[in-house]
């Protein structure tokens, strides 16, 4: 029966429309409550900034891709080492931290929930093995359906309910939270070293188009009444001129009616998909065009995929894009084809401000966030560790809050960047309320986690709370950006489920978090048709037997299961 009172907090809780109000927060048994008795432990926030615990809706924290990144990069594991203490296991790594540093790093920044953005069903057990070892934070993951034979065969036969039945089964098999689509159809084409060129380019041997894959999965998503929308990585990522594909993709889900109070589609790391020009020589930003679309339409949300200069390890189920990256940069290349399901690739690289291409990418992420008027529509992410490691979030926040900070950064970036982007002309500076939206509230809402008490501090919410050593009343974030960055990097307190896990930026306790997943159901006739096809695929084409395929209960620790299905 632990009780905690946080006094004199300056609270930003956008889901409950609390905007910088000075108030007390009461915590009992891991939840936010109205009031508590006199015996509670007290933290005097003394006018400091208090946010709900951070939520990251798109990050690569666990599984086969992350681990091949570690295996390939002992150079990275040499960075940021910290010996074990009585409380913590050793930290290693910057772009691909070990499991312990992964959890500690988030908690130190006041984050308490993170969702892994790509789980191949066949390798989901591995993802959960790492989840089990990532301390403190709550986790969930998005399951890949982008180039799946079961999905494509059902689409070709125009059997939407069978698609839905397979999505339900795949989410259960992988213990996933939502539907991830990466370069739809491209993973199958990559099986023979090809790619799909656009939304209407048929997938070889399957005779369905990327457009159909998106459309059917979006409809199946709503039939199953899933908490999250489809989560889409567009075709043609990383190619100059790709913004036209991106805009076309936005339109595909325009008339999808979400069953829940959320977007019809979330399009991820749009920075990588908002490129104009025809080749590397004339590449330019179309961030402004994308933002204009965002300002006119309400059916979609995006996240930034902000670039951070320095080392990154790119990892994605978009196999062909990683081959292209590795070839262009003569970099190490790991590819990971997954039979019947998808592709993937991992390539380490480094972003340099002297490169106008990297400068343009840096600018686009910021343009998306600053030119889109509604802060709820654009999440702050770096697509960790693709645009850069998540430990740089405080730096990105400082860029969003301070034009001065941006100007200081721009002074070091290749000049051509400013002819090809509008970043130098943008005056907007986000405030603490906007940042609360972009780093927790909107993440929770977009994922469908509000009702699970994430991303807000209303009564009944999880007592996941971040207190930062910064007084909003006394700090001018537009000028004192170094102070902002330092405060956000090391929280004064991180409270997870009512327990103090970080104090003065140091880990004080390492409880294990929960894993959220969705168990959904489709009509039984559709399920039966799907199972008949699935059994055939296992008999003829999978290298693992059906009986050994699904993730077992033993791998899902502290599970929280959302049950949903056809209305």
């Amino acid at each position, binding site marked *: 029966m632990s009780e905690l009172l946080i006094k004199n907090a300056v609270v930003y809780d956008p889901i409950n429309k609390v905007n910088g109000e000075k108030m007390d927060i009461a915590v009992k048994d891991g939840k936010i409550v109205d009031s508590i008795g006199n015996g509670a432990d007290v933290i005097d926030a003394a006018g400091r900034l208090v946010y709900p615990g951070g939520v990251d809706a798109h990050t690569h924290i666990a599984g086969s891709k992350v681990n091949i990144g*570690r295996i390939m990069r002992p150079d990275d594991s040499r960075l940021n080492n910290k010996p*074990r203490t009585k409380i913590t296991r*050793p930290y290693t790594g910057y772009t691909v931290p070990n499991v312990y540093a992964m959890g500690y790093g988030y908690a130190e920044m006041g984050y308490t929930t993170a969702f892994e953005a790509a789980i191949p069903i066949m390798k989901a*057990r591995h993802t959960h093995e790492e989840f089990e*070892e990532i301390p403190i934070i709550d986790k969930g993951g998005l399951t890949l359906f982008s180039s799946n034979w079961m999905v494509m065969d059902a689409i070709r036969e125009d059997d939407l309910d069978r698609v839905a039945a397979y999505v339900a089964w795949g989410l259960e098999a992988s213990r996933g939270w939502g539907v991830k689509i990466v370069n739809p159809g491209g993973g199958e084409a990559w099986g023979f070293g090809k790619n799909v060129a656009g939304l209407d380019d048929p997938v070889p041997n399957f005779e369905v188009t990327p457009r159909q894959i998106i459309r059917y999965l979006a409809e199946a998503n709503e039939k199953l009444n899933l908490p999250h929308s489809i989560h889409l990585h567009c075709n043609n990522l990383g190619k100059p001129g790709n913004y036209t594909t991106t805009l076309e993709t936005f339109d595909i889900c325009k008339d999808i009616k979400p069953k829940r109070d959320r977007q019809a589609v979330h399009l991820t790391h749009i920075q990588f998909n908002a490129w104009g020009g025809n080749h590397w020589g004339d590449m330019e930003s179309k961030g402004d065009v994308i933002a204009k679309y965002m300002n006119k339409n309400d059916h979609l949300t995006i996240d930034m995929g902000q670039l951070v200069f320095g080392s990154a390890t790119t990892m994605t189920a978009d196999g062909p894009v990683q081959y292209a990256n590795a070839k262009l940069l003569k970099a190490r290349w790991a590819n990971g084809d997954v039979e019947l399901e998808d592709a993937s690739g991992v390539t380490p690289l480094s972003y340099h401000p002297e490169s106008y291409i990297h400068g343009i990418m840096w600018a686009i992420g910021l343009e998306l966030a600053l030119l889109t008027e509604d802060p709820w529509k654009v999440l702050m992410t770096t697509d960790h560790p693709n645009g850069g490691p998540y430990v740089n979030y405080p730096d990105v926040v400082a860029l969003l809050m301070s034009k001065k900070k941006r100007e200081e950064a721009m002074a070091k970036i290749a000049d051509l960047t400013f002819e090809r982007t509008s970043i130098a002309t943008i005056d907007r500076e986000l405030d603490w309320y906007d940042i609360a939206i972009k780093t927790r509230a909107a993440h929770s809402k977009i994922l469908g986690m509000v009702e699970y008490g994430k991303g807000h501090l209303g009564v009944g919410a999880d007592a996941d709370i971040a207190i930062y050593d910064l007084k909003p009343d006394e700090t001018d974030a537009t000028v004192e950006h170094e102070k902002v960055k330092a405060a956000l990097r090391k929280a004064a307190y991180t409270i997870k489920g009512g327990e103090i896990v970080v104090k003065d930026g140091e880990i004080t306790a390492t409880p294990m978090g929960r894993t959220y997943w969705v168990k959904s159901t489709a009509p039984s006739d559709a399920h039966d048709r799907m199972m008949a096809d699935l059994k055939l695929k296992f008999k003829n084409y999978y290298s693992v037997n059906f009986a050994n395929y699904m993730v077992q209960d033993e791998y899902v620790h502290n599970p929280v299961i959302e049950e949903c299905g056809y209305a």
Partner: protein
Amino acid sequence: MIIKDVICPFCGCLCDDLAVEVENNKVIDVKHACKIGAAKIRGHNRIEAPMMRESKTDEFREVSYDEAINEAAKIFVNSKRPLMYGWASGLCEMMKKGVLLAEEVGGILDNTASVCHGPSALGVQEKGIPTGTLGQFANRADVVIFWGCNPVQAHPRHMSRYSVFAKGFFTNRGRKDRKIVVVDVRKTDTAEMADEYVQVNPGEDYKLLAAFRAAVADKADVIPDTVAGVSKEKIVELAAAMKGAKYGIVYFGMGVTQTRCKYKNIDIAVSLTTDLNAYTKFSIIPMRGHYNVTGAGQVFAWETGYVNGIDMSRGAPYYNPGETCSNDMLMREELDSAFVIGGDAGAHFPAQSIAQMAKIPVIQVDPFHNPTTEMANIVIPVKVSGVELAGTAYRMDSVCLRMRKLVDVDFPSDEEVLDKILAKVKEIKGVS
């Protein structure tokens, strides 16, 4: 009772279609497995009880588990540089516990890859690895190259399940849809059934791989008339076959990892594979031996950032192959005890290392008697994982599976033994 879909705890194939007949808690029949897998599941040479001896020339005396575990803990506490080697014939749950113990005692954590596919890891660090799951190769690959490996002997069901005879979506005639090439120094049983056998001179694989790269890049004019014992004509012909593949796959073994040039062979083999992707799709994959040596690399990587040769003495993991792997340290005579679990140093280490191991206390945790037992001071028998214990293992293609328990036995699991040693170490050190 017949237990179906059993996963075999022998080699990195992790065949998951075995049917094992169990009666009265005893395995009486193993179906679908290869001879080696079946033999392991049936059991043999079991160590029946914990044993200890002061001098390695003494006879062992049977002791209780508590006594053996207490003595093992004392050895750890009294060691400045304890080696903790093996970790390949066991489950991931055991490995995680091993990392924790290594942190507590400041041990050197090294797995059997050190004397097997360790050089492959170095090649991956240099160049990456374009690869995939075994089913991807079964469904698509029409050009299959076995380089320095002999699955007929070492991975007996590999060819029927994944690589040669397997029928897949794009390879529905199985063997007939594939061109099989074997590159080896001797005509192995695998070479006997290949379409092409390429006899490479011992220790000259690197040269041959370099020549293939030149031929693939259409630079055959720089290739001498013979390279590594193979004619230029043959090299050019095979390079054309590789480029003409719909999907090509290179399976490689210790014939390239543990011969001259070691990791450089893997470096250039990966480069060749990457080069070929400019023309078609090509992948490469190591043929891993112990059923869960892949898991050892995976677990160590996510827990410490490194796959093997991990020195925990600094409190944070430190890795420098050439300095921190078992044999580097044994040959420098730097280690003052050795803990061998789920691997057999005695059978696989070079003589100079073995001579050093003979001088220091050795603790063995294993179900089976093997050459390491001969130089051990403490022997702690445990359950046979995957037969008597359920848990996690990674197939050679890093696909993670859950091994089944088939029978119950009274032996403790290796994880339990590690847990008890850890508790005892903490007790002796007086830490909570």
